[in-house]
């Protein structure tokens, strides 16, 4: 688990088209260094991200997620990120209550001019996820009850 020196996390980053994706762009064109472990998915708006996608990310083996949208008040679609904010807070509570470390579930805001901030955020996220170690999956303990039945029936 934690302390694995060679652990390179797989992080899915959902960035809104209007602010955070532009921030990532800016960070790149300004030649800022940030860790390469994030895989960016560009979405129209943080308000359009179905929480299911984020749960699904863990189902498919991502070690963590990062969601970033425009700062509240700056949404291209006026209030998309206000709706998103409620959803993400509830999702975070849900994941944490179910036993998934909160370090894996990251939300933030980044405007198009904040290339530097974006690089710093990615740095932080990667560090946070490295600290909790690889995600072992929902089925880290195997089938438990089902296993004995299937194996035994053969």
């Amino acid at each position, binding site marked *: 688990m934690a302390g694995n020196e060679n652990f390179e996390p797989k992080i899915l980053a959902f960035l809104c088209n209007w602010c955070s994706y532009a921030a990532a762009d800016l960070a790149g064109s300004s030649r800022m260094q940030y860790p390469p472990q994030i895989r960016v998915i560009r979405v129209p708006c943080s308000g359009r991200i179905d929480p299911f996608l984020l749960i699904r990310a863990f189902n498919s083996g991502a070690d963590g997620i990062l969601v970033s949208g425009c700062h509240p008040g700056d949404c291209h679609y006026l209030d998309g990120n206000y709706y998103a904010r409620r959803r993400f807070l509830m999702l975070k509570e849900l994941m944490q209550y179910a036993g998934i470390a909160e370090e894996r579930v990251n939300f933030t805001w980044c405007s198009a001019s904040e290339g530097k901030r974006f690089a710093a955020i990615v740095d932080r996220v990667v560090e946070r996820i490295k600290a909790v170690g690889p995600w072992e999956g929902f089925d880290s303990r195997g089938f438990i009850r*089902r296993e004995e039945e*299937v194996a035994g*029936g*053969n």
Partner: protein
Amino acid sequence: MLKVLAKSELGQFLDKLKQEFRVVAPVRRQYGKKERVEYHPVENSEEIILDSQPDTPPKKFFLPQNERLGDELEGETDLEEGEKETLIFGVRSCDLKAVEILKPVFLDDDFTDTYFQKKLEKTVMFGLGCSSRQENCFCDSLEINPLEGKNVPVNMYDDGEKIWFAVRDKELEKFFADLPDGDAEELEEKKGKWQEEFEKTAITLDLPLPFPELKTFEAPFWHKVSANCLGCGVCTYYCPTCFCFGFFWEKHPEGIDRWRTWDSCMFPLFTKHGGGHNPRETQKQRTRQRIMHKFSYHPQNFDGVPACSGCGRCISQCPVNIDLRVILRTVEKYLKEEEGVKSSG
């Protein structure tokens, strides 16, 4: 060969069986607040429960809820050889009958389901005669004898203190060699008493099997009997005879696997076509399908035998307490009334 075993010596006896078999028996499990009796590999003989019907049927040993059938590259996988045979200890008449019902479905002459067949071949079942009626069961109304399991090498009886074994298979006799002989008359007397109890609480169902499809299909009562159905799959997943399954492919980091899992006619997705049309759109149609399959289509195809063994699990487990017996009574009444109208008119 009739043998008896004091219950206190059950552990020792099972140890003997365990040398040759993987012994599975109904054991008690505590899940949260709910106490359950389920078939599990036995670790400790004290947890075996013989006086109460297991909440889940033994179907899962022949038709597991998930079964991996191979992957995209290897093709079909062979079953593992060399495993110990499974011995299911204490299977009641209803569940034994259920296996008999499943057999012609999977072991058809034209097509044999090898997965089912191989599992069945590697399984031995010890029957258990019921000494009292279980919650909601009605196998005797479907012409099944609750005291006498059919097609089993050993039939057991539990009278509270001793376990009786009626051994019918020569090969298995070696396990029973050092047990004392039982008194056949004493057992008969006990069975007589149990039989009486069953007769007292029996309900008579006068069902024409198979149900006449044309007469019942559009009958008005279906709406009433299905009105409170939620549409979950509990009744079919707990049924010892429901065998519908689906195939699908599942992706994982190493490749793609082919799986077979249970499916249920109570789900709308069961019949939904690729184009979006669903021939069984309402819960009424789906409930009707479940009943008609069990009591009309199955008997039409398999010598008049209904695909129900009267174990009553669908009744006990239903979240809204829908009662199959009430539905059968309704059908019975409806057909009688129809008959009356016709003969008088």
